[in-house]
């Protein structure tokens, strides 16, 4: 037994002196993200949730969303000092800021880089967002500090495509050409933090970009750590190893985390709109009355309440609230009697069964279970075939599910969301497929007309009509909007008003500080 005491004592002794660690004079921000690894850090390839927060820190666009805001009407100059647009909205001319430096010694940013970068974003071989730039006709450098973009037709919210988001992030031409494949994990931008090291499976080390054009950041570096286990991530935050934490979209989590001293929970936009798409090609959902019955049977307020008032809001339309064009649509009220009557009228007095392929991802599965319980009240039996997330994504795109529960945020202009989810061109299993799982086609005309409508009021009206048509045809039943949840220790000061971030994680600016 004595040996055991010695062993235990040895382990303890080994632990304590080392536990003191080294005092760090540098201000390093530790961020914990729910992922096993990064997908891609190349801004034109970064599509996963875990990739996006980094974009905020490394890149700029010609214009930018104000830090902490997702409002597309609040865009302000970023790499461009100013811009002009022709009266027909087809020609945009940007005057670039002088003396902006790329990170890691890649030199001054000029019109050449901007042209290269935007063309790269528009090329499907190098960008995941190429489709957004389909209506761009030409991008040219008029001189080293002037860039002109010509459009084939009016693009709603065009400025968003040259903002600091997705394809609008400006990369260094020299770095792309010089780094080759390495650019995927070690990209070079003009933003406040530069990537110093990518550690597979572990994290990304960023350091302050000394030559940042708005001034050297007050925080010296960011350690972005991949911690896939929710429990471990929370523990690392409690132990002080993390200052900023990717939270859980869960009411209980929010309440518990708020209680901890020195902790702030950030519930931010954009919201992901969760909708239940009803496949109009599958019996009995081909009958409008049956689809209406489903809509009447769903209690949006009930779902939002169950998901938690802190992180979820009832849906207001078939497009997320706050996007350019979204209205407060006339949705079906919760009315179980009416639902039953409609089913009976359609020839199903004993109810129906809908078979659904459902992801095992817990947040999505538990929402669907609430829907399942609500539909049951009206005699609609939702049979869930639960599969893992990758299988789910593959199978719903093969048109195999009678209904699809999908939760998504898009660029905050209605055109994009509506086109991808409700335009017949986007119907699954077609050559131009996107995410139209319902085979919806009622609003094609309005969506197409709105896209090229130069007059704002008319465009808004077309979008409004489109939304109501989609609601009335019950292509999808909007459920609730899920906000993003983060938490930070009070020693971190963003120094701007954090309401949201299109990149799904808080922006760290040159002015942000760490006590």
């Amino acid at each position, binding site marked *: 037994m004595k040996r055991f005491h010695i062993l235990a004592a040895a382990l303890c002794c080994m632990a304590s002196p080392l536990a003191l660690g080294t005092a760090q004079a540098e201000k390093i921000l530790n961020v914990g993200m729910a992922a096993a690894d990064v997908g891609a850090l190349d801004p034109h390839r970064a599509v996963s949730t875990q990739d996006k927060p980094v974009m905020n820190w490394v890149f700029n666009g010609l214009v930018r969303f104000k830090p902490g805001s997702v409002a597309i009407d609040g865009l302000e100059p970023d790499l461009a000092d100013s811009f002009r647009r022709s009266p027909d909205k087809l020609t945009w001319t940007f005057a670039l800021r002088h003396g902006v430096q790329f990170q890691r010694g890649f030199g001054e940013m000029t019109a050449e880089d901007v042209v290269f970068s935007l063309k790269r974003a528009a090329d499907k071989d190098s960008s995941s967002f190429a*489709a957004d730039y389909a209506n761009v006709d030409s991008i040219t450098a008029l001189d080293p500090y002037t860039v002109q973009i010509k459009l084939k037709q009016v693009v709603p919210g065009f400025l968003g495509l040259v903002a600091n988001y997705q394809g609008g992030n400006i990369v260094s031409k020299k770095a792309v050409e010089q780094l080759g494949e390495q650019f995927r994990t070690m990209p070079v931008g003009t933003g406040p933090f530069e990537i110093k090291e990518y*550690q597979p*499976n572990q994290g990304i080390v960023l350091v302050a970009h000394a030559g940042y054009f708005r001034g050297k950041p007050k925080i010296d570096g960011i350690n972005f750590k991949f911690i*896939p286990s929710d429990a*471990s991530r929370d523990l690392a935050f409690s132990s002080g190893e993390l200052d900023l934490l990717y939270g859980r979209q869960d009411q209980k989590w929010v309440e518990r985390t708020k209680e901890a001293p020195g902790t702030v929970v950030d519930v931010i936009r954009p919201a992901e709109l969760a909708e239940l798409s009803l496949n109009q090609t599958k019996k009995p959902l081909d009958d409008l009355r049956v689809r209406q019955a489903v809509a009447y049977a769903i209690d949006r307020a009930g779902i939002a309440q169950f998901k938690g008032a802190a992180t979820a809001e009832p849906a207001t339309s078939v497009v997320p609230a706050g996007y350019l064009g979204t209205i407060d649509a006339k949705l079906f009220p919760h009315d179980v009697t009416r639902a039953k009557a409609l089913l009976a009228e359609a020839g199903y007095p004993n109810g129906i069964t809908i078979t659904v392929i459902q992801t095992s991802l817990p947040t999505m599965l538990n929402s669907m279970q609430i829907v399942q319980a609500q539909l049951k009240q009206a005699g609609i039996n939702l049979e869930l075939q639960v599969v893992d997330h*990758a299988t789910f994504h593959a199978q719903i795109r093969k048109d195999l599910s009678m209904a699809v529960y999908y939760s998504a945020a898009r660029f905050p202009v209605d055109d994009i969301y509506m086109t991808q989810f409700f335009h017949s061109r986007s119907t699954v299993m077609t050559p131009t497929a996107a995410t139209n799982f319902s085979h919806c086609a009622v609003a094609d005309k309005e969506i197409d007309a709105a896209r090229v409508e130069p007059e704002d009021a008319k465009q808004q009206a077309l979008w409004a009509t489109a939304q109501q048509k989609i609601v009335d045809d019950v292509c999808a039943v909007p459920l609730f909007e899920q906000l993003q949840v983060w938490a930070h220790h009070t020693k971190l000061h963003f120094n701007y008003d954090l309401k949201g971030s299109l990149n799904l994680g808080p922006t760290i600016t040159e002015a942000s500080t760490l006590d």
Partner: protein
Amino acid sequence: MLRFVALRLVMALPTLWAVLSLVFVLVRIVPGDPALVILGDQATEQALVALRHRMGLDVPLWDQYLQFMAAVLQGDLGISMVRNRPVWGEVATVLPYTLELTFVGIFLGVLMGLPLGVLAAQHRGGWIDAVARWTSLLGLSFPAFISGILMLLLLAVELPWFPVIGNAPFANPPAHLRALVLPALNLGFIMVAYVARVTRSGMLASLSEDYIRTARAKGVPARLVVWRHALRNALIPVVTVVGLYFGILIGNSVLTEIVFNRPGLGKLIVGALNDRDYTMLQGLMVIYALVVVGANLATDLAYGAVDPRIRVR
């Protein structure tokens, strides 16, 4: 000796081939699309088709299979579909972490399990025996992720002795060792349970042998009787268990690695599975199979070290 090793390696080839073929088919049978993972859920169908073509996923299955086998035979595990980096490189960066964790885990397991088993056998029915039996029961029945979280709560959050995030690099030995303690202990606990149980029963058997009685009658000190004469004979099954569980622990390290945020094969394989990264999964299986084959070989060789009667000539 060399011939024996070579023979065993040749005999392992059919196993490897079977594992590889099975994995090749399995990863492709499971629905899911690596192209969709890379391009994201806003990707257009044309872009997906183009990417599948570029990754060679649109060629016939048998063709893909032949290409894969030909590459493996040349020691080429290919390039990760999703991460676009050589699989060998990806594995090489994390393999030391997994091997280190497994070895230290086994070492701790044996270090604690062996004496525990011997003491339990020596004091059969006594309180040490009871403690040993309870400990092994706990070790066997506690899932690694529960014991891991409990340890973190106790020894990293309440008592801030160890870090929650266990990924300190090799380049910083003090921090690295400190980060290794909890995960290795966690893995070691499972081992303690097995080793203590097998040691105990082995010891009980050998302690009742005639030669032990003879040794005792001769007046050999009790310590020597137990730790030299009896233990040596009880070791064979222990070696078997350790060898066998080396492979199992490598697999079990998946949970430990995730809970303790260590880089390693486990984290890699979970990521590759979520991403449907076919080449990465295949490559990882090759590595796992090689490790298990290697561990079995080492076990066979260890028998000889423990028991001269089965030494290979």
